[in-house]
């Protein structure tokens, strides 16, 4: 037997003994603890396998003789055999290439993290949750939701109490203000191009005999067109207002919006296109979803009731 094998057995035995001495006799050591037993068994296996693998190759270096054809070139006298590629190595090499192709075409693109991807998932999840939670929301809950939307989006111009902050924006506690009615009659209006593509022509003040008559009509509209005011209704017809806004100011589809009060359609017309009038310019609010528009409309409608 070669001396190398003896040294290998001695070395392995020494390592095992040292392992046992270091952990085997301590309290809670090998006798009691299955994890320690497994760890030591693993250590023993490692020692034995390592020692015998090393011995195998060292022995091979000692006794093997070279054979096979040499490649043409040599490097300072060191040649290279034209050996076959080892089979296991070749298979692993090809498998690695296949994995690489999968990874670059499928693995990475499909599974990779993307910030925008996470954002899109986040938005989709939120939208689904929102739709489920507020599906059948009506009545007071809708108004409450509308109030919170209002406080987030609208109060910056219309004020916390929706009074328009001293004329800086429209006072939403009433459908329409005198200055706005007059401005629309004199200058026309073409704000809600999506819902009322025709717009309102300017110069309708010429339908009234005097400034006083015009003021009378303005007051009638500002008051919300009360049914018992026959004089107002007369002037409303005289000014051909009823042609587009209807006899009672309920509005007509594609012709003119409701002007005797708020409803969901009226508010969403404003949110869709924005508005430019006597008081100032309001931007459009595309960022609100359909349910939020419904809610904020319900809230604004509730203010003037």
């Amino acid at each position, binding site marked *: 037997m070669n001396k190398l094998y003896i040294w290998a057995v001695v070395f392995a035995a020494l390592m095992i003994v040292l392992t046992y001495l270091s952990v085997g006799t301590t309290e809670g050591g090998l006798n009691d603890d299955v994890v320690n037993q497994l760890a030591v068994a693993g250590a023993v296996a490692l020692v034995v396998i390592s020692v015998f693998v090393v011995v195998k190759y060292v022995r091979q270096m000692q006794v093997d003789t070279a054979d096979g054809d040499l490649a043409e*070139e040599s490097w300072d006298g060191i040649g290279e055999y034209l050996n076959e590629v080892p089979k296991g190595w070749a298979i692993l090499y090809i498998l690695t290439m296949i994995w690489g192709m999968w990874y670059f075409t499928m693995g990475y693109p499909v599974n990779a993290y993307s910030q*925008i991807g996470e954002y899109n998932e986040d938005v989709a999840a939120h939208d689904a949750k929102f739709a489920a939670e507020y599906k059948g929301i009506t009545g007071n809950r809708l108004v409450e939701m509308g109030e919170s939307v209002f406080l987030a989006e609208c109060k910056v111009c219309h004020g916390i109490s929706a009074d328009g902050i001293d004329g800086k924006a429209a006072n939403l506690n009433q459908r329409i203000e005198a200055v706005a009615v007059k401005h629309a009659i004199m200058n026309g209006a073409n704000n809600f191009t999506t819902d009322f593509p025709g717009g309102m022509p300017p110069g309708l003040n010429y339908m009234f005999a005097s400034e006083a008559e015009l003021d009378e009509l303005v007051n009638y509209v500002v008051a919300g067109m009360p049914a018992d005011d026959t004089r107002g209704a007369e002037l409303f017809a005289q000014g051909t207002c009823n042609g587009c806004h209807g006899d009672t100011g309920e509005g007509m589809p594609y012709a003119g919006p409701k002007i005797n009060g708020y409803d969901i359609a009226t508010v969403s017309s404003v949110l869709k296109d924005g508005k430019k009038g006597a008081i100032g310019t309001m931007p459009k609010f595309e960022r609100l979803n359909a349910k939020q528009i419904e809610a904020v409309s319900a809230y604004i409608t509730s203010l003037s009731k």
Partner: protein
Amino acid sequence: MFHWLEKNPFAFAVVVIVTIAFAGLVEIVPHFAQQARPVIGTTPYSTLELAGRHVYIKNSCNACHSQLVRPFKSETDRYGDYSLSGEYAYDRPFLWGSKRTGPDLMRVGNYRTTDWHENHMKDPASVVPGSIMPAYGWMFVNEADIDTSYAEQLTVAKFFGVPYNKPVPMKDGSTKIIKMGATVEEARAMALAEAKLITADMKNQDVKDAVENGKIPEIVAIIAYMNSLK
């Protein structure tokens, strides 16, 4: 061939460097070029808007207001779509800001209007109760520097190829031409014409009068800039 390479280490090193450099170029350059291109719909600033941008920088608005919407739901709900790098193509320098004491202004033109800015700059707390933003009364008095703005336009058009007087593609497929004056007199006249459109929506009589007299107060320029942020 490979045996030849193995025998010639210097040539081998050169070939390796060339190969890796080429692969890097092929991977990096098209991506970089795509990212650095202006997003469709991004237009250069007009003379008045650029003057407003100078007012914005001069008053350190960017110390409290950012111009960068991050891709989080809580941000896009407040400020609109998240920012893309190509949207800053004509910003020199970009005004991302480092801290939000006030809200982000990246897309403020979408949800605030001229008359609101007028009220807000005069007295922020009058429209936003509890606002800690100071009033910027001097903007209603000081004149905007149109000449410097025009000089910047000329410079960026010449050295960076910013497409003034050239069709710029818009999101709906159309094109838009942002005009730049051929002379400084023409640029002043164009800025004044744009200022008149802004003051038509304003209420402050002093500002209206100043513009009628051919002067452009800073407030008009900064409102033009704010309205251009979309």
